[in-house]
């Protein structure tokens, strides 16, 4: 029974990672950049939700929508101001710019809201359902449900809509997409908008699990989700989903069965082993270089 309950907790944590990893992987797939500021968008989303709930007393759905709206606008603005001028630049320049944006957001948050930790209100009632001795908290259930819902919506969007098809085309070949009449800049903006919106959802779920809000909140989940995205094969949406869930399960199992202090080391060691066996991640496509 312990094993099952750890597994479900792992899936709950993994769902949060998966939602964040989707943002990383979509941006990587289309803009071919590692958006290191993604974790800090989560942090901003968490602060917005916190203030909406605590200071303005808004109901939860409104707070979530507000948080999604702010993050979406933030993501698109950052892309427009900082990343768009660097379309032709080397990937390292874009990486450093993303790091700059990350520093900027963290320090802006520290200035605006101070570095002290704020306690996030309880949004999902404690307790849960029990299935033959196995108890699952509402929080875990809701997190997993949200993740599956997001995944289904995103898959439908990518595969069934015109914009989704344009996104897939852009990730294959930007030049050819432009020739086919796709506005690549618009598609990149939409990608950042979706990724940042997902970050806001992840922020609320994350804060429901670990109820504290502080300026560097997004850093560690950001790195873990980035790892999850690479784990599953960066650029692949099902890969991010799978990578996120696996990462969560491995982390919880490592904590439960091996050592709490070493759980991070174990997670990263598993990542290295996976990449050595499958160098493009679990579901990534390996592109052969042609001479």
């Amino acid at each position, binding site marked *: 029974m312990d094993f099952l309950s750890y597994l479900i907790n792992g899936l709950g944590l993994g769902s949060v990672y998966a939602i964040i990893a989707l943002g990383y992987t979509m941006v990587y797939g289309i803009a071919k950049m590692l958006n290191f500021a993604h974790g800090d968008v989560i942090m901003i989303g968490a602060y917005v939700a916190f203030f909406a709930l605590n200071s303005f007393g808004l109901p939860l759905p409104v707070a979530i929508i507000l948080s999604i709206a702010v993050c979406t606008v933030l993501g698109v603005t950052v892309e427009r101001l900082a990343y768009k001028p660097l379309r032709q*630049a080397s990937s390292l320049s874009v990486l450093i710019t993303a790091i700059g944006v990350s520093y900027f957001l963290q*320090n802006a948050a520290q200035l605006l809201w101070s570095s002290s930790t704020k306690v996030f209100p309880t949004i999902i009632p404690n307790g849960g359902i029990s299935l033959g001795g196995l108890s699952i908290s509402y929080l875990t259930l809701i997190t997993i449900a949200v993740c599956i819902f997001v995944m289904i919506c995103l898959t439908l969007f990518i595969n069934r809509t015109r914009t989704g098809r344009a996104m897939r085309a852009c990730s294959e070949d930007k030049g050819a997409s432009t020739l086919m009449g796709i506005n690549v800049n618009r598609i990149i903006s939409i990608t950042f908008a979706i990724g940042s919106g997902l970050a806001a959802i992840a922020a609320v779920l994350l804060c429901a699990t670990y109820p504290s809000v502080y300026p560097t909140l997004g850093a560690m989940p950001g790195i873990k989700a980035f790892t999850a995205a*690479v784990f599953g094969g960066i650029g692949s949406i099902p890969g991010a989903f799978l990578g996120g869930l696996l990462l969560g399960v491995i982390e919880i199992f490592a904590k439960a069965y091996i050592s709490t202090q070493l759980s991070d080391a174990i997670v990263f060691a598993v990542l290295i082993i996976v990449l050595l066996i499958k160098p493009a991640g679990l579901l990534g496509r390996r592109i052969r270089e042609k001479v």
Partner: protein
Amino acid sequence: MKKNGIGTLVSRKKRGRTVSFLIVITSYIIMQAMMSTGNLSSLFSGLLVPLCCYIVAAIGLNLNVGISGELNLGQAGFMSVGAFTAVSVSGYLASAVPNPVIRLIISIIAGVIAAALFGIVIGVPVLKLEGDYLAIVTLAFGQIIKSIVTNMYLGFDENGFQFSFVDNKTKLAPGGKMLLNGPMGATGTERISTFTMGAVLIILSLFIVYNLIFSRSGRAIMAARDNRIAAESVGIEISKVKMLAFVISASLAGAAGALYGLNYSTLVPAKFDFNTSILILVYVVLGGLGNMTGTIISTVILVLLPELLRSMQDYRMLIYAVVLIAIMLLTNNETVITKMKMIQKRFSSKTPGDRAAG
């Protein structure tokens, strides 16, 4: 001297080498003179040793990222290995080798060896991967090293060493000494690092890196960077030459870490986290990939910038971030690049011999 083709390129690069050595030696003499006349604030003189450490680590990283072309996000991990090895060795030898300079040298060598060993062990799997995957694996190793060091307990007494992992199980006899104390790191370290040693390390690392670049192996490393397949087809063993750059880079980080660790009485493992790796990467990229002089200058500016902005108090890190983004946007802006080239052209047509580059 006739200026054309590859000869110009090499001579320009070699001039870059002379310039970088001159910069280091001149600034060392100026700093020493200012210190002895008491013109240097205590804040600033306290920054000198860490500054040297960051420069050495950045030169090493530039070899890896700029010359070898592999993005490494775990340089701080190697610094951590170097630092804690050196601190332990220094602590152990405190009574056996009373002379601080000799002990410092022994400790740094130990740190370099430990970091090089880690470099070899990590390099084997890492260099099988390419591009962003390689970057993420170096990040992962950086995190693993941090986790491991955070959970290490090492002490010694008259019966020898005692080591334990995760939980502190060491039971030292009276008179024993803890060298590593888990998350608390190393405490009570004798501060034996000196600015002179920092300057010596910078010059040594420049010497090593420049000699490598201008050697046959260096050319092989750059060939492997520019076109992996073409380099392989002319018989260059890619994994071997990449490994060479990776291990030298790790060793330099180890030396930097050793000097850093012995400069503070307490050192926590969390000091060498992902942010430190990123910080060093920022120095390298801003200074220019493959450009050692640029790395030194950008490291000096970026280490001092937050201190110079101290009057802005809370806003300093915000301004730092804005400066970082602005530099990246400006250096990649078409109009700025053309303008700079025009200025450079006009300047060089007047004084053809004075173009410093490389």
